């Protein structure tokens, strides 16, 4: 589905990613863990195509096609979706009208059908009805912003979903709702990349593969047991192991 080959990325003159290799399979869930500032979000933004993230070496393939130089618009239209760690406020544009616009890019559906679909997806995420009339992310609480990201994902059903710190700023109840929502939207045609500092969301959504990133490189990979090890011992031991290489 998504194939990242030896990716080197710099941001404002500073190299952040230093040779990332990752193969994302259809229908699987991936977790990328690591301490703050190691390049996890950089990877997310680079896959989504933010122009400030410069690829110096390597490439990104989506279904065999090189997308390294495509615009964010083109990537989104191919089926790549990034749920932002800090969703951006768009005053004056209601959630409903925004969602209809982005859904219309994918498929033209009638207003009646849209309203029905929206209602269904909102109840999935335990969002109350009035929410659709509010301006997008404008004055939303942290939890509302995150729910709104997942609501977008639920509606457009992208093929590759990157969740950038979706668990940050969520209390236990909200985390449960968001996690359940993600699980119910997930299907065998979708791949999910969960980027997180903490292991707690992975107690709700079990990843198929786990990678640990440090200083712009993957330093460990494994399965759920790697998450458990990090939960018990933190990241320091990995740093030590890695520094001996």
């Amino acid at each position, binding site marked *: 589905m998504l194939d990242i080959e030896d990716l080197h990325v710099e941001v404002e003159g500073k190299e952040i990613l230093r040779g990332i290799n990752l193969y994302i399979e259809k229908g699987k869930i991936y977790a990328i863990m690591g301490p703050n500032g190691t390049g996890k979000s950089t990877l997310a933004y680079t896959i*989504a*195509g*933010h*122009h*400030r993230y410069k690829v110096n070496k390597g490439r990104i393939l989506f279904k065999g096609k090189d997308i390294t130089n495509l*615009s*964010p*618009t083109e*990537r*989104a*239209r191919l089926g790549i*979706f*990034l749920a*932002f760690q800090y*969703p*951006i406020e*768009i*005053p*004056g*544009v209601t959630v409903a009208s*925004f969602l209809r*616009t*982005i859904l219309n*890019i*994918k498929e033209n559906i009638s207003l009646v059908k849209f309203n029905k679909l929206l209602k269904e997806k909102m109840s999935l995420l335990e969002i109350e009805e009035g929410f659709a009339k509010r*301006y997008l992310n404008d004055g939303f609480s942290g939890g509302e912003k995150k729910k709104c990201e997942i609501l*977008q994902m639920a509606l*457009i059903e992208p093929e590759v979903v990157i969740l950038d710190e979706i668990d940050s700023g969520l209390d236990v109840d909200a985390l449960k709702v968001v996690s359940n929502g993600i699980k119910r939207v997930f299907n065998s045609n979708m791949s999910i990349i969960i980027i997180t500092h903490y292991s707690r969301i992975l107690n709700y959504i079990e990843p198929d593969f786990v990678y640990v990133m440090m200083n712009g490189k993957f330093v460990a990979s494994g399965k759920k047991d790697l998450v458990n090890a990090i939960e018990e011992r933190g990241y320091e031991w990995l740093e030590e192991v890695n520094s001996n290489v």
Partner: protein
Amino acid sequence: MSDKIISEYKYGFKDPEEYIFRSKKGLSRETIEEISWIKMEPEWMKRFRLKAYEIFISKPMPSWGPDLSELDFNDIYYYIKPVDKKGASWEDLPTYIRNTFEKLGVPEAERKYLAGISAQYESESVYNNLKKRWENQGVIFVDTDTAVREYPELVKQYIGTVVPPQDNKFSALNSAVWSGGSFIYVPKNVHVDIPLQAYFRINAQNAGQFERTLIIAEEGSYLHYIEGCTAPIYSTSSLHSAVVEIIVKRGARVRYTTIQNWSSNVYNLVTKRAFAYEDSIVEWVDGNLGSKVSMKYPSVYMYGKGARAELLSVAFAGKGQHQDVGGKVLHLAPYTSSNIISKSISKDGGRSSYRGLVYIDSLAEGSRASVRCDALIFDEYSRSDTYPTMKIRNNNVLLSHEASVSKITEEQLFYLTSRGLTNLEANAMLVRGFIEPIAKEFPLEYAVELNRLIKIQLEETIG
């Protein structure tokens, strides 16, 4: 002017310049006498015009606002009569005029959602219709020339009382050469609950359009009037200088909505004012797109206790354009209230200014006024200014003033494009969001049109 811009201003098409009569270029006493003679006007109106002409000559050009130095009063045709007789139906009009209004969607709008419509082409109203239902209730909706003939007493009583010729140089000019415009009379307690619309079209090169609109809303009545304006693009300038006078009596409510989309060679210098009496409501809802220079400050003089004024405006200044717009509210009686919201967008070197006055008289005990100006600036070449004036003569009032300047951020654009919107769609959505508080006050069809027009303006530079 580049071909690109011409192709993107959708209403830039031109008809052949056919007309029954066109006055000589330039302005003189003879021109005015000629206009009055062709219109077969009563003596009092001719005198009104000639007196106004003297005032026009005696007044200097306003120097406190936008640059008007390229406006040459001698290079303009002040009166162009396009047809001999007004059409009783659209079919009666010459094909090219009918096609023009078809292209502008005017007859369709009439059929779908209007109580009545008036279409002005160059100097004269060519079509005017009010649905029977309103006519039967005593509503009058005719062009102002017809009103001078058929309702001389009403016209004589009110014309020039709200905006006198001596008010400013352009109100004097309009008073001297006015032609067309709407005359509306709504009797006591009659609610015209679907809008009346007038459409103004300039076609000829170097043409001046000087419509004169007079609206009288009797006690307890309601009216929503909409006007739309366009013109083709020429390399030389055209001048649109209208005067709008509105009298809103006790407990009445008038909403006046404008969607102006002049081509970028038009000087749009307009005086609009309403008198609001006890417990009445006046709302100016204004969408200013296009034109070379616009000077427009819709005003409400609140003479009656409890009167209310709402001034909502959106202005878009693109390349080579200066939108100098705003509003004036005069609180002249107790417990009056006003609300001004101005949203401006400047792009590609365009300049938009908010110029406003809030005056609260010593008599206006317990009044409240609020002013909010938001500017959105696209690039470093564009400019936005605010010139808010507050004159407060009473201590027992509530006053608020807020202003903001914002930019579209890279992060907003990335967020939206990462959802599949193109760069243009993302910009258009952000602008749509910015003007939403005003756009929602337009009737749906017009809000859609406003957003569409803004998208066209954005298309000129965002690919």
